[in-house]
C-alpha cells in the first residue's frame, strides 16, 4: 500500500451507525458512504499495481479548464450573471496546476474583465449588468491572479471604494448589490477587495467586526445572517473577514475550532458544510481553508501547544477524498461520486487539496504521486500565494482613496 494513505480496512469501522433510528439524514448519509466505499475498494486494488496512486489527473483537468476559458456549453446559461466567477475559478485552478497562459491571453482576459466593470465602480456578473459584491470579489481575484500591470490597472480603485460605500449598511454589514440581500458574504467580499487593492479605511468597515461576530452560532461556526445555522461557506467568510480586520479575538475561537474540526467526515475524509449534512468537495476549501487562519490565531494565543508540522485537520484523509472520489476521469472535479463535474467544484476541491498539501514554511505533505503537488495559496483571499503577495505589494504603493459615503 502506498505511503500516506489510510488503511481502508481499518476505516470500515467508521461507517455511519444509525442506532436503529433511521431518518432521512442517516439514509442519505449511508447511501453516500456506499458510493465512497466502492471507490475506496477499487482504489485499494489499483494501488497494488500502481504504487504512486492516487494520481491527480493534471492534464485532463488543465484541458477541461483551458477549453472552458473560451467556450462554455449551453448549460452554463444559468451562470450568465457570474462570468467573473467563471474567470476566477478557471484562472485560479490553472494557477494551482502550475499552468501558465501566454501574455496575449492574459491581456484578453483582463480586457474582458474590464468590460464587466461598472461605470459606477465595482464589477458586474457580465457586461452591462449592475455591479455586485460577489463578481467584484471574483474579478479582483482574477485580475490579481493574472498579475500583470495591465490587469491591476483595470481596477478603478476610487470608484470601487465608492461602490463599497454604496452597499454598506448602517450596522457595518454589506448588501450584495444596491437593493440586494445582506449576508456575511458581503462583508468578506468587500474586505477582501479593499485589503487586496489597498482601498481599506477604518470608516468603511466601522462596526463590521461586531456584525460578523453576531453571526457566530451556538455551534461555533458562522451563519449567513444572525440567528441562522452555522455553515461552511459562511464560516470561512466570517473568520477570513475577522482576520482581514485583525479582530479574530472578538469571536469564540475555541467553539469555532470545535465546530470546524467536526465537519471532517470520519469515513469519507472530506468536509461537510453543516452538522449532519453530506460531504461535498467544495468544502475542502471553505472548511479546509479556515485551518491556516486558525493556525495563525492559535499560534499567537498558545504557541507551544500548536503543532509545527500540521494543520488541525486530517490532511491525508482530505487528499484521499479529493483524489479518489472527486476526479472526473475526463477532467474536472466534482462534489461527490456520481455528481457531474463543474468549474466551481474544480476550483474549490483543488484549492482545498493545496491547503491539505502545504503547511507553513514550505513543508509539504503529498498523498499519492509526488507530482500531485499543487501551488500554495494565500488562504485569506484564495489566490495563489505569489500572486497575492505581488498584488498586495503593487497596490501598497498607490495612495488610499478617501471617498466618503454619498
Amino acid at each position, binding site marked *: 500500500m502506498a505511503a500516506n494513505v489510510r488503511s481502508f480496512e481499518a476505516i470500515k469501522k467508521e461507517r455511519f451507525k444509525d*442506532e436503529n433510528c433511521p431518518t432521512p439524514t442517516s439514509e442519505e448519509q449511508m447511501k453516500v458512504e456506499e458510493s465512497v466505499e466502492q471507490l475506496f475498494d477499487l482504489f485499494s486494488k489499483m494501488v497494488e499495481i500502481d504504487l504512486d496512486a492516487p494520481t491527480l489527473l493534471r492534464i485532463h483537468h488543465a484541458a477541461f479548464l483551458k477549453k472552458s476559458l473560451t467556450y462554455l456549453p449551453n448549460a452554463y446559461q444559468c451562470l*450568465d450573471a457570474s462570468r467573473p466567477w467563471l474567470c476566477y475559478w478557471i484562472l485560479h485552478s490553472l494557477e494551482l496546476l502550475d499552468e501558465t497562459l501566454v501574455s496575449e491571453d492574459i491581456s*484578453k482576459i483582463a480586457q474582458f474583465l474590464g468590460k464587466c466593470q461598472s461605470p459606477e465602480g465595482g464589477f458586474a456578473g457580465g*457586461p*452591462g*449588468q449592475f455591479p455586485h459584491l460577489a463578481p467584484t470579489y471574483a474579478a479582483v481575484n482574477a485580475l490579481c491572479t493574472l498579475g500583470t500591470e495591465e490587469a491591476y490597472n483595470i481596477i478603478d480603485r476610487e470608484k470601487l471604494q465608492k461602490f463599497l460605500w454604496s452597499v454598506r449598511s448602517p450596522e457595518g454589514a454589506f448588501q450584495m448589490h444596491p*437593493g440586494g440581500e445582506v449576508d456575511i458574504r458581503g462583508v468578506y467580499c468587500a474586505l477582501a477587495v479593499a485589503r487586496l487593492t489597498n482601498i481599506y479605511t477604518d470608516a468603511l468597515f466601522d462596526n463590521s467586526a461586531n456584525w460578523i461576530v453576531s453571526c457566530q452560532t451556538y*455551534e461555533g461556526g458562522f451563519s449567513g445572517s444572525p440567528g441562522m*445555522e452555522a455553515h461552511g461557506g459562511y464560516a470561512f467568510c466570517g473568520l477570513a473577514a475577522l482576520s482581514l480586520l485583525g479582530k479574530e479575538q472578538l469571536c469564540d475561537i475555541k467553539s469555532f475550532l470545535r465546530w470546524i*474540526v467536526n465537519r471532517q467526515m470520519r469515513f469519507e475524509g472530506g468536509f461537510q458544510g453543516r452538522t449532519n449534512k453530506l460531504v461535498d468537495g467544495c468544502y475542502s476549501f471553505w472548511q479546509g481553508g479556515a485551518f491556516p487562519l486558525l493556525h495563525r490565531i492559535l499560534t499567537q494565543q498558545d504557541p507551544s501547544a500548536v503543532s509545527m508540522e500540521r494543520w488541525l485537520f486530517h490532511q491525508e484523509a482530505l487528499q484521499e477524498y479529493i483524489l479518489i472520489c472527486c476526479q472526473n476521469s475526463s477532467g474536472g472535479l466534482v462534489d461527490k461520486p456520481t455528481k457531474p463535474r463543474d468549474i466551481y467544484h474544480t476550483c474549490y476541491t483543488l484549492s482545498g487539496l493545496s491547503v491539505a498539501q502545504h503547511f507553513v514554511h514550505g513543508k509539504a505533505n503529498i498523498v499519492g504521486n509526488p507530482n500531485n503537488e499543487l501551488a500554495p495559496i494565500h488562504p485569506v483571499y484564495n489566490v495563489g500565494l505569489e500572486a497575492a503577495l505581488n498584488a498586495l505589494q503593487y497596490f501598497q504603493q498607490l495612495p488610499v482613496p478617501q471617498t466618503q459615503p454619498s
Partner: protein
Amino acid sequence: MAEADSSSEELYDEGNWVFYKYRVDWNDVVPVPQDDGPYPIVAIAYSEKFRDIYDYFRAILKSCEKSERALQLTKDALDLNPANYTVWQYRREILKHLNKDLIPELQYVKEMIEENPKNYQVWHHRRVIVEWLQDPSYELNLTETILSQDAKNYHAWQHRQWVIRTFKLFNNELEYVEQLLDDDIRNNSAWNQRYFVINNTTGFTKEVIDRELEFTLNKIKKVTNNESAWNYLRGVLLHHTGGISQDPAVKKMCEELYLSGNRSPFLLAFLVDMCEEKIERADGDMNDSLQHAVQLCDVLANEYDTIRKEYWNYVARSLSQRMNSSEDEATGSMKTE
C-alpha cells in the same frame, strides 16, 4: 389583466415561440447585443432565444423603459436565468414605477421559488415584495412547502426566520420544530431553529433551561451519535450558571452513558470539556481532572475519533500546558509570599 399577468411564454407556447426581433409590438426597440469585447472569454453558448431576449432586455435597461411589456420581458429573461439579479432588480423598479398590484407578484415569485428553491435572487425578491406589502400571511405556508421537500434548505429557513422575527410570528414555531425533529431527529436546521425561537422569545431562563435540558437529554439517549443534539446541549448550557459541568441531570446522563459502555465521540468530547471546566473552576482535584481529560483525548485520538487525531492531541497538549503554567504561577506566588 389575465394577459398582463401571464408570461409571454404562455402566449407563445414552445412551438409557437416568436422571437422579440419578430414581434410587431417591439419593432420600435433596437436590440442591444452584449458587449464582450473582441475576444471570446468564458463565452457561453447561448440559445438563440436567450440571446434574443437579453438583447431586448439590454435595450430597455438602456432606455430606462418601465412599461407593461418591459415587465413581461423580465419574466421571459428570468425564466432563462433566474439568477440574473440585474433583471430582478429592474423588475422591482418597474413594479414600483407602474404601481402594480403585488398579490399576483407573490404568486409569480412563489412559482419561481418552487422551481428554483436554492437560488438567492428568488428568495430576496419574495422578501422585498412581502416588505412592500407588509403582509406575512403566506410566508409560513410557503416555507413549510419548500421545507417539506428539503427540510434543510438554507434559503427557506433564512426567509422564515426573517418573517418570524419581523412580524413576531413565534407563536407556533416550537411545535413546528418538534414536528420536524420527530420526522428527523438529526435535522440540524430544526435544532438551530429551536435555539432561534427560544433566544428571541422567553430567553434561557432557569425554567426554560431545565425544560430544554430534559428535552435534549431524552433525544441524546435515543440517538447517542447525533451531533446536532449534543451541540444543542452545549448551546443551552451556555446560559447555565453552572456551565457544562455542574448540572446534575447532565452529569447523570453522561455518567450513565459512559458506564453503559457508550463511546460516542460526542460523549467523550463532552467529558473532556467537563474536565477542563472543572480545572478552570478549581472544582475538585485538578490533577485528577487533567489526567482524566488527557486519557480521554488519547482514546479519542487513537480509537474513537481518529480522523480528529491532530485536534485531540492539540487539546491534550493545550490542557497540560495551561495546567503547568498555572501551577508555576501558584508556586511562584507562594514563593513571593
